């Protein structure tokens, strides 16, 4: 029986979103999955379709560095980078940062090119609860590459009533 390490999970997530088609999980495999890995990212399927026009998103080349456990969803530091020479012939054209559960799934759309020198961005995002964060890059040859990482987001105990 297949064991679901984080890596195979991630692969399943990407398979799920590739081409906007959810691949059904086999029954025994599903029985082993934690609740957070339900046949994933259904919310993102239409968004992905808009971005890729139905083309497949291959796993790899894109790397997301984000804390496994974010202690506050208001500010989650993140670095996304793409393995690309960033030359005129071969570079990242567009980089998307997507969230599975935020009310607006597209966090950022980044335009870059050979003059950018390095396909990487460090920023801080908001996450409305524990979820997958997905990064998808469109290369200069039109191909799509991506990765997905699940992040646990906790709430604070010490609330503030002064509000905005």
């Amino acid at each position: 029986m297949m064991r679901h390490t984080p890596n195979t999970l991630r692969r399943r997530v990407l398979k799920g979103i590739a081409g906007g088609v959810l691949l059904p999980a086999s029954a025994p495999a599903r029985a082993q999955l934690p609740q957070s890995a339900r046949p994933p990212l259904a919310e993102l399927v239409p968004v992905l379709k808009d971005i890729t026009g139905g083309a497949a998103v291959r796993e790899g080349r894109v790397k997301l560095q984000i804390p496994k456990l974010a202690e506050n969803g208001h500010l989650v530091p993140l670095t996304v980078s793409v393995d690309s020479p960033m030359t005129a012939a071969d570079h990242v054209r567009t980089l998307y940062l997507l969230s599975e559960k935020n009310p607006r799934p597209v966090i950022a759309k980044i335009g870059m090119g050979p003059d950018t020198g390095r396909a990487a961005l460090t920023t801080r995002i908001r996450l409305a609860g524990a979820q997958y964060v997905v990064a998808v890059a469109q290369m200069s040859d039109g191909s799509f590459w991506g990765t997905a990482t699940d992040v646990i987001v906790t709430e604070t105990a010490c609330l503030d009533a002064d509000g905005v």
Partner: protein
Amino acid sequence: MSLARILVPPKARRGDVVDVRIAIQHPMETGFRMDNNGRKIAKNVVNNLVCRYNGAEVFRAELGSGIAANPYLQFYFLAKDSGKVEFEWVDDAGEKGSAAASIAVTA
């Protein structure tokens, strides 16, 4: 007063990949929050940020409410010639901001 901080190295060698950073003071209002009187606070985020190096665009970001308050971005560009690095941004209310720094590039 719109306030931003930028970090651009004062000098670089031609062909270096240069690291630039920008932080903008902005609430990045999501449009989902209420004020203390229960009235909805209108969405207002910095929705677009462009970085130009000697006039040529090297980086563009379309941002949404999923970017944390007081947006911070660190990215890169390829050093070619001495000149100006300019940042320009605009929010949903149409308020524009800009910042610039110069960089000296040696061979």
